[in-house]
């Protein structure tokens, strides 16, 4: 991480996060984030080779549910909140052809 954090590519990160930023914002965030990351450099000085990561504040496992229906909301409830609707049935978006099969990428 050392030198890396000094050249955060904010434009690339903003694109990943789908945020439009103007030039002023880019330079401001670049400064802020570099400062924060410089501070976080302290983590690289800790020997963590034998430490396992903690992802949760609670240590429970196997929280699952039985395969029983709980009911759905009505279509009108869904579409009432939707910004754009098609035929009172579908949520409308500009045309998009998924890169790949119609399924997860």
């Amino acid at each position, binding site marked *: *991480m050392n030198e*890396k954090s000094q050249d*955060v590519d*904010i434009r690339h*990160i*903003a694109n*990943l*996060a*789908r*945020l*439009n*930023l103007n030039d002023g*914002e880019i330079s401001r*965030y670049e400064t*802020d*984030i570099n*400062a*924060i*990351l410089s*501070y*976080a450099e*302290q*983590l*690289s000085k*800790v020997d*963590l080779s034998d*430490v*396992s*990561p*903690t*992802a*949760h*504040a*609670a240590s*429970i496992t196997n*929280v699952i*549910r039985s395969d029983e229906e709980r009911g759905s*909301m009505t279509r009108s*409830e*869904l579409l*009432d*909140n*939707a*910004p*754009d609707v098609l035929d009172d049935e579908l*949520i409308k*978006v*500009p*045309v*998009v052809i998924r890169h790949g099969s119609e399924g997860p990428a």
Partner: protein
Amino acid sequence: MSAAQKFVNKIDSGTIHEASDALETGQISSLELCQNLIGRHDDIDGKINGFLSLDTSQILEDANASDARRKNGKQLSRYDGIPIAIKDNLSVKGQTCGCASKILEGFISPYNATVINNLQKNGVICFGRTNMDEFAMGSTTEFSAYKKTSNPWDINRVPGGSSGGSAAVVSSGQALAALGSDTGGSIRQPASFCGVVGLKPTYGRVSRYGLVAFASSLDQIGPITRDVKDAAILLELISGRDELDSTSLPNSDFNHHEVGNDFDVSSLRIGIPKEFLEIDGLSSEVNDAFEKSISVFRSRGCDIVDVKLPSIAYAVSSYYIIATAEASSNLSRFDGIRYGNRIDRTSDLLDIYLDTRENGFGEEVKRRILLGTYVLSSGYYDAYYLRAQKIRTLIRDDFNNAFNNCDLILSPVSPVSAYPFGSVSDPLQMYLSDIYTIPVNLVGNCAISVPASFDGDGMPIGIQLIGNSMDEIRLLQAAHWFEFANEMEKNDEV
């Protein structure tokens, strides 16, 4: 004069338990109670700006319904008809749930958060939506997209954040109590700044279902109240295992009666981490308040022991990596496709995403989304996110070791008391001021902020008691005792 009668005369400084007594004995109706609070709101919230919205007709309707229930002996609980203010990131069916963000403008939630269901089951009335830092990201409530909330003790100062609206409305007598959320101190710090009680329960004690997520592994809903007993009561009402939240803990029901008056404080071992006293920026006034609190415990025979939390030095780094990483992912759903505000200039999908999110999110939210996206991005995960998670392990081990030697840990809540608007502009400086509160979220323990003292300008200063996981009973007993002992001490001084 009965306690209930006394309450009627001082609603704007009353508590849930007093109001509940007054309702039970018929000294006051829910309608009168709500009308009084609405009146108080109309008088002062123009200056405080604690509420984002207050649907008075709905509230009065609910109050009437509650009074009818009680009249027929069908009250849902002792607390039927008690109004509680709700932070704007908690979902209430049929209400807006905006998280003080423009991106959720117009969104009406179709469902209740589990805590709201739990309150309504007991007849509790949702009393307005309180202001907050947008998506709970901030320590001053200045990052609300709508308004700046003032500290009721000095309207030129911040109320703290992110639950600044909740703390301010409780402190200013506009609500008996409020719900807030605490991801890194967002209940405890504003409670301290506003001179009220703020409890962050053990992670998993209170269901997060219906709390708009900031950082899923750190968020927890909790009460902001006028006294510790109310915090215990509200915790009882909202806690419990929830099958809609996979991170909800078994056996998480809480009974406030276990927080009794017959607590033997002399058997308590209070741990003082010396690392907490070496924090840069710890003001002498907060330090004094802290020392004074130690002496309150010591003078009643408590064992005061030194404990070590060596990895605390890395807590802020670890926290801001984990919290922003989770936030960047949690906030990706706000895109203007299915709900909320869509900005569509060009009929191009990518532009909808970019424009909607550019206009919908404020400065601090964008900053954190960028940081979080960066630490998860290809090539940086191991250096940042994984390391931060490992530090989290070390901090958890530190606390486990500490709790082998003590029952509770005592610390400041914030290095400083409430400051004037606009005085902290550097994000890193703002993050660093969370040092006393964020370790608790990383570990998942419970902690409470209790009013302790005042600074030279008369601004309140709280102290923090930190308990072990699921040790809320002891935490609240000690806090309850401290609240009383500290009051006595102050009277003695006078």
